[in-house]
């Protein structure tokens, strides 16, 4: 049995497979809990985008940083935030990663280098520039991946950030998860050019297009960008073509797209199925191992729900805490 694909060993490959499944199951679980009225507000599910989150972050070292998006549960999981704390946060509990004050849209975990999801599109790209500036000015050696969508790619702040990162030669990777829609707006209607990666030339940085359903390709392309950034050669723009299977948020009837289109992405380009097939074909994964991995995922999710449900609500006394340092 082969234990390797390219230069990735079996442990790493199975870790990637585990994380992709953990993200999928986490999202399915919270959707279920939302329907049951256990979760409040809204949420943006990333089912279908597991290949981009896990593939890109698999190219990083633990000390590297990311900025996340409002559709960022998968990014948090890939950057290895404790899912118990994430789940508790979605439940609004005192034990949540943000003590129940941030919710789904503001998941951050500075301890693992996640500088935060963001409710404002385009804001995180500027933060990534600043975090990379810290790395460069203090010679800390870390790189930053900033994630954003096709929708955010039309925000002015994204363009300013790309130009800043380029002129200051900062270790940033601008990673566009092009999931085809900014809420209801199709990228075809909102962007004149076909590929967002083509904009890289305007900022004097390399641009790459990658198949977001192929987790290993995402990882490989990101690794090249990370290497370039770490050598002090500056930023890269990567555009991954992907798809969010679910609506924009919990109130979206998806009137702006066809079920044929959805079916094509779901049936033919599921990043988890494609990766699983490859692992089996290449002899990295067998049925028994798969069963074990899925069992581990199930247990982790059940544990997170239990942790969240058993956790206390935040006290009203905590309301005015943490406004100022």
């Amino acid at each position: 049995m082969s234990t390797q694909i390219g230069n990735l060993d079996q442990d790493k490959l199975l870790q990637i497979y585990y994380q992709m499944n953990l993200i999928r199951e986490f999202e399915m679980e919270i959707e279920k809990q939302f329907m049951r009225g256990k979760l409040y507000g809204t949420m943006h599910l990333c089912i279908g985008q597991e290949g981009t989150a896990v593939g890109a972050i698999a190219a990083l070292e633990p000390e590297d940083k990311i900025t996340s998006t409002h559709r960022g549960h998968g990014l948090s999981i890939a950057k290895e935030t404790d899912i118990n704390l994430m789940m508790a946060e979605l439940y609004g509990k005192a034990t949540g990663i943000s003590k129940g004050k941030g919710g789904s849209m503001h998941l951050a975990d500075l301890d693992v280098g996640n500088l935060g999801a963001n409710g404002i599109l385009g804001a995180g790209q500027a933060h990534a520039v600043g975090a990379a500036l810290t790395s460069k000015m203090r010679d800390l050696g870390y790189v930053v991946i900033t994630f954003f969508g096709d929708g955010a790619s039309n925000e002015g702040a994204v363009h300013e950030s790309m130009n800043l990162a380029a002129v200051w030669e900062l270790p940033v990777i601008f990673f566009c998860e092009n999931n085809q829609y900014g809420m209801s707006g199709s990228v075809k209607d909102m962007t004149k050019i076909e590929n967002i990666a083509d904009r890289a030339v305007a900022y004097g940085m390399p641009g790459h297009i990658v198949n977001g359903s192929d987790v290993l390709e995402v990882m490989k392309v990101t690794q090249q960008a990370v290497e370039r950034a770490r050598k002090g050669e500056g930023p890269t723009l990567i555009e991954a073509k992907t798809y969010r299977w679910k609506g924009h948020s919990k109130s979206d009837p998806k009137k702006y797209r066809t079920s044929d289109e959805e079916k094509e992405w779901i049936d033919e380009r599921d990043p988890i199925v494609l990766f699983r097939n490859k692992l089996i074909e290449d002899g990295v994964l067998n049925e028994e191992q798969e069963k074990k991995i899925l069992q581990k995922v199930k247990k982790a999710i059940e544990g997170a729900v239990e942790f969240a449900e058993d956790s206390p609500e935040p006290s009203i006394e905590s309301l005015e805490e943490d406004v100022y340092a």
Partner: protein
Amino acid sequence: MREITFQQAIRESMSQEMRENELVYLMGEDIGVYGGAFGVTNGMIGEFGKERIRDTPISEIGFTGAAVGSAITGMRPIVEIQFSDFLLVTIDQLVNQAAKMRYMFGGKGKVPMVLRTPNGSGLGFAAQHSQSLEAWLAHIPGLKVVQPSTPYDAKGLLKAAMDEDNTVVFFEHKMLYGMKGEVPEEAYSIPLGKADVKREGQDVTIIATSIMVQRSLEAAVQLESEGISCEVIDPRTLLPLDEETIIESVKKTGRAVVVHEAVKRGGFGGEIASVIQESEAFDYLDAPIQRLGGRFIPIPYNPELEKNSVPQVADIIEGVKATIYRS
């Protein structure tokens, strides 16, 4: 004691801090060789180099956001926004990001950033380069807002702002840059949230901010010759606000006039007036609180029109008299 200008005091405060703390750096438009639009950073690039006196592209939202990102990862940036009107271009990063991060992240992380910016009218720059927008920012939980009125205060308050672990917006009135005053050579700190009684008096309390402190002091001198004794209080920081000093003064005088250059409607004077009337000072009031502020117009270009759009010494005298001769 030696006298230096308001502008020199700010530069000296930053330079002293940068010599002490390598995490502090400055970022903004034309702050390098050019020395900043008002010359505040003049010569600093020679001492600190272009890494730490960092000229930026004209991308206010981008570089302010970069400052936020560098602050939350351990640096202590000072951002110069060339005119405070351009704050409106940075507003997402200030209001939605810097001010809220710590709270949204459950008390983790801090954004120790100072955003310095010239505000105010008086130089003929018209509607988009002359505003006073401090009330917008003093409305935002998570920010701190500072408005020095003298060279001494500017140096000490800026030191406190640079030592803060929160985001501070530091307004520098353009007409004050050339003002001279006594300033110690060594670094010193004036705590944020501590008002200063600029002049003691018995008959009326004038609470004034920024350049209006100077105009109020001038008015107080003239009023004294007419037998009216004015106490002039400069809050120095709007957020946090030293309510106690204001309330104690109004309890003593029984009369209050609030003066700022910003448009009166929705201005911070309304907040100060409310603080007074919600406090025990209400029982001591002998007349309604007077508010003086800019007219409800964009700042015009013509010098006479410009002058008439914001309170002048004569307006303050009139406002004080209206309070005194009522009742």
